[in-house]
């Protein structure tokens, strides 16, 4: 580099570029090693779904049984129920969560008292940051037979309901409590979308005498539509996520009928019950459908909204 002729800096820069590329590989190496061990090795471990996996024999020594576990799985009456529960619960969370977040964002946008607006935001974002371990205690306090909700119902002469032990009420309870936890935080993005709507449109409509309702319906909502669509499409893959943390902390054998989801089912039967190969098979089935959903969601998003997830 210290040479004084004209070519040296150019040659030096080329060498630097090569060195830079080597450095790039080196920078990626540690992360890739972690992914190799903790993401890709388990993917290889999926072979166990086609084996009669015995821990002592390992992935290489266990006997192959082909699609045995998958055949068994599809013959179980449980499995359809578990997938149906998962999809109903997840769809309910997505649909009602989105609706409430949109409504809340529109209403919050009307609040002109800065202090009030800030306070409400502070409070409604809070549950998003708390663990279901904490929030399940809240839900149980409210919804058990002696809980606040039943006390209120009792006061109005209504019959008490065992929400946590009722197959009619358990799914609405899961959906409702998740909507409660997340609507505030989900409204953040819709608030941003409302803020991006041209205020001139509102002024013009106001001059023409359009009512608030009509302006929300014809200006605000259409302005938010691209974001609403994008988020709806991108939420498609999560229809297989019932939310392990929430369900695990709230369910009990009485409500397995309606509350058992894929993740809790795999945990109970595969891990706790040590039916490793069967658990892996159910997990693989979920992963594959999940992958298909995510790729379709990405393609739909790319096609219709010109944005994508990856």
């Amino acid at each position: 580099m210290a040479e004084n002729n004209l070519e040296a800096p150019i040659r030096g820069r080329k060498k630097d570029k090569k060195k830079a590329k080597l450095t790039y590989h080196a920078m990626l190496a540690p992360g890739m090693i972690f992914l190799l061990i903790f993401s890709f090795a388990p993917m290889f471990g999926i072979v166990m779904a086609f084996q009669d996996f015995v821990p002592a024999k390992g992935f290489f020594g266990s006997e192959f049984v082909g699609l045995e576990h998958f055949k068994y799985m599809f013959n179980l009456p449980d499995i359809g129920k578990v997938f149906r529960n998962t999809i109903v619960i997840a769809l309910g969370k997505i649909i009602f969560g989105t609706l409430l977040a949109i409504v809340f964002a529109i209403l919050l946008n009307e609040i002109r008292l800065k202090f009030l607006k800030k306070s409400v935001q502070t409070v409604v974002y809070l549950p998003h940051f708390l663990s279901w371990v904490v929030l399940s205690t809240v839900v149980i306090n409210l919804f058990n037979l002696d809980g606040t909700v039943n006390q209120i119902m009792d006061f109005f002469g209504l019959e008490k309901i065992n929400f946590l032990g009722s197959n009619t009420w358990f799914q609405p309870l899961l959906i409702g409590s998740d909507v409660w936890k997340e609507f505030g935080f989900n409204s953040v993005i819709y608030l941003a979308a409302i803020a991006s709507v041209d205020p001139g449109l509102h002024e013009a409509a106001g001059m023409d005498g359009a009512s608030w309702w009509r302006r929300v319906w014809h200006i605000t909502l259409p302005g938010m539509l691209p974001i609403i669509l994008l988020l709806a499409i991108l939420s498609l893959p999560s229809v297989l996520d019932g939310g392990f943390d929430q369900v695990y902390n709230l369910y009990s054998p009485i409500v397995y009928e309606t509350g058992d989801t894929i993740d809790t089912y795999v945990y109970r039967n595969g891990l706790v019950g040590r039916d490793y190969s069967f658990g892996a098979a159910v997990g693989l089935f979920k992963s594959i459908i999940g992958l298909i959903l995510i790729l379709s969601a990405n393609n739909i998003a790319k096609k219709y909204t010109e944005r994508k997830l990856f």
Partner: protein
Amino acid sequence: MIQGNNLSTKIGKFIIYFIVISLGLVCLLPLWNIVAISFSSGEAVAANLVGLKPVNFSTKAYEMIMEDAQFWRSFSISVQRVVIALALNLILIVLMAYPLSKTKREFKSRNIYMNIIIFAMLFSGGLIPTFIVIRNLNLLDTIWVLVLPGAVPIFSVILIMNFFVGVPKSLEEAAIIDGASPLQILFKVYIPVSLPALATVALFSIVGNWNDFMTGLIYMTQVSNYPIMTYIQSLTIDIAELVRSGTNSDALQNIAEVQNRNLNAAKIVISTIPLLLIYPFLQRYFVTGIVVGSVKE
């Protein structure tokens, strides 16, 4: 915005304020109830007398926690976990995001790496194969099992990568002319201008690690190794018992530990304090993170 001064607009405004404030209270009051329970006497709690005000105000629950060795062991495991995970996550995020933010012309293998990473984000081996791999690595019951499997938060890597792409090229070119190496460029040019984005992913890491109870549940065989949320989860009401016995008060007679509902509430309150301490930052940076992260092309 609602404009005008006639009666129907006033009613409209009132209804909107009423709904918004109600939703705020619906979020706040159930949480406040836990705080009130933690400061009430055990008997009052068992009789479901506690609403928003502590009944028979008592700090006994908190005094008892002071002597609960396992609570503080779990608390300290979680603190250690958050610190180690945060350091590891941040280092790996910036080291990976920087080369990935280069164009294909600048770094030929960039797309190959990117595809590998995205595949790892989209597809997983699932719970059971991951468990077997981790057990074969003899990581069960170590603090490392809480940290290493999540060492590369791929979503955060992509978020920071997108941020790095937006850093003006002129800054980097000036550093190259000064003879800076890629590592120097990363630490002296990119990181200083990306602090808000890094704060966002740092907070993702802290909250995620603090709140996670499933990892501890799956990979710890000894209660003494539980992180705080797994420990608290193991204490809370046995729902099966609660549901079967019909009423809460009957279940309370049956399960010894549930007589300490105020004790559990106090544990929940203490375990939430670290999150409340960083809550102002959470509000600020999570909001930017979620807007940037989900709207970015």
